[in-house]
């Protein structure tokens, strides 16, 4: 997986806040700060992993980047074009370049629609192919993701979970996008099938030169598939590093704790686990200062009042922490 340092997608200080309404008049009482100031460059041909616990805003980040959520604040620059304020008509050529693979492929397929029709839909909207050409293209897609031609006529309920995810992948690559957001694409699958889908994703990337934003909570899969990893906590960036640096030299205490918490499939080797106290605080009422200070084992007074700056500690390795 060669990565040239050419920026494909630039995300600048992106925020997504959801209003919380309450009372008789349904006034906006508060905001859930799902994504709170993310600045990122995504390079052409790379796989950028986004990890964090549930509720950290990683999925919302993926959806916001694709324009599926409106921006609260910030800029999205795709291939040098600032698309943050584009209308949906202006966005159409860009949407062709960006696709998404969802966690639960069954929920994202219409149960009454044949697989062939579901796959043709994107081609109807984005290309001028005739119906014969479309059918040809869909059959070729099915083969490419490891399904058979006869699956064209079938309905979603006739497939197993792994096969459905293959359909989800086929649909995402049908119009030759350059950028795909994968939102937990393998977490609903059994381990043996999970490995098959990971392999498929990697083969397709090589073949089509795809760029992935890979959202996952499974740190094992992320290590296996990604070039760089972003760790998020309560909508904010905690650590960003090339994959080997992050796993061999995790610097932020949250990353350390996250990595040490993974149960390892090896016996006999007792590891000292960093125990994190408590749960994730509510994103509608995040702690002041460093968002992690309430659970951090090395928090000092400064951490509860002052937000740590985002700084580079090593080439390509960024963290936000006062103490490290």
């Amino acid at each position, binding site marked *: 997986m060669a990565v040239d340092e050419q920026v494909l997608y630039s995300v600048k200080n992106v925020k997504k806040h959801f209003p919380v309404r309450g009372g008789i008049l349904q006034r906006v009482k508060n905001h859930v700060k799902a994504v709170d100031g993310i600045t990122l460059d995504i390079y052409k041909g790379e796989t950028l992993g986004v990890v964090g*616990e*549930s509720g950290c805003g990683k999925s919302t980040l993926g959806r916001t980047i694709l324009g599926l959520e409106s921006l609260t604040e910030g800029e999205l620059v795709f291939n040098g074009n600032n698309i943050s304020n584009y209308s949906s008509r202006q966005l159409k050529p860009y949407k062709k370049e960006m696709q998404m693979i969802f966690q639960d492929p069954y929920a994202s397929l219409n149960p009454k629609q044949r697989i062939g029709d579901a796959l043709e839909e994107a081609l109807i909207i984005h290309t001028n192919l005739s119906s014969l050409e479309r059918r040809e293209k869909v059959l070729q897609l099915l083969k490419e993701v490891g399904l058979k031609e006869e699956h064209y006529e079938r309905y979603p309920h006739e497939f*197993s979970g*792994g*096969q459905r995810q293959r359909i989800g992948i086929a649909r995402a690559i049908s119009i030759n996008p350059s950028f795909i957001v994968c939102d937990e694409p393998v977490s609903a699958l*059994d*381990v*043996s*099938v*999970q*490995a*098959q889908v*990971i*392999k498929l994703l990697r083969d397709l990337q090589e073949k089509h030169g795809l760029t992935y934003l890979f959202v996952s*909570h*499974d*740190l*094992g*899969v992320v*290590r*296996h598939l990604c070039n760089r990893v972003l760790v998020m906590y309560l909508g904010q960036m905690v650590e960003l590093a090339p*994959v*080997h640096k992050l*796993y061999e030299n995790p610097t932020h205490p949250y990353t350390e*704790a*996250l*990595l*040490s*918490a*993974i*149960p*390892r*499939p*090896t*016996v*006999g080797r007792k590891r000292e*686990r960093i*125990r*994190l106290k408590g*749960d*994730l605080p509510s994103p509608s009422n995040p702690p002041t200062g460093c968002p992690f200070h309430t659970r951090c084992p090395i928090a000092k007074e400064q951490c509860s009042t002052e937000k740590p700056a985002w700084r580079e500690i090593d080439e390509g390795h960024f963290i936000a922490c006062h103490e490290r």
Partner: protein
Amino acid sequence: MKETVLEVKDLVTTFKSADGPLPAVRGASFSVKKGETLCIVGESGCGKSITALSIMGLLPSNGMIADGSIFFNQRNLAEMSPKQMQKVRGNEVSMIFQEPMTALNPVFTVGFQIREPLMIHLKLSKKQAHMRGIELLKMVGIPSPVERMNQFPHELSGGMRQRVMIAIALSCNPSLLIADEPTTALDVTIQAQIIDLLNDLKEQLDMSMIMITHDMGVVAEIADRVIVMYAGEIIEEGRVEEIFENPQHPYTKGLLASVPNVDDPEFDLKPIAGSMPMLNEQISGCRFHPRCPYAFDKCMEQSPKTFYVTDKQSVRCWLQEEGVEQNGGRRASSL
């Protein structure tokens, strides 16, 4: 040698269907000793949860134990009436489920639900049960337990709910705890907390545990012994070190090679081709042979016998028979 708490023999559990009974568990035999943790590993549809539900007497109405026995402390649970079973369940054997939000009743307080088994099984008064409930919540590491007693499940986080479930399951000091994927719905940091808690409590209370999971990492953290299930059958059994360091069955090997290793960047992911067969699929011989890279003629015709690799590790695979001829040093006897 510690005493045996649970002895399951040739358990067959079937489900009614339009095409006649479909077996979900096909003759499973295993035992659990006092203070031991047994992990049942396998992918969805392999029959691991149904095995647990059969022991608990909680099979859905279309399922039944068709054959075999389940001896728990010298009594056969498979032959007990629902009424007798009620006295055992939640008292001597209890269970934790994957999704604590669906296992807890949303309209009753945590206190009500934790008092219930104490009042029914131990005949405590409401007041005594309340005090004991607070102690239990404290034991599972819930902060400010007195206030939690009056809260509803939706007011708690996922990790806290699972702790409440554990407190309820342990309320009557069961000698066997069955945990069905208790950490699958939780985040890694919370999962680590729950695993530590289960390990501590097991030691503290000297109980046996059956842990059902598909996560090989969790198995390595918690198990003493491991059973690997595939399509309703136990295909390999052994001590946890044996299963991880010297797996014999191609499926066990495949399962271990399918989990990306966090510590090894060069780890080569080798998926198992195909997917788990459906309950109604007719497969001759070894149930794994359509997916097995080493399958040969015999695998398609005859169901494999059990071969012993060591006195604790056994495997059902015809390759073992060949293995004896290739390296005679290994002791292999058939049952």
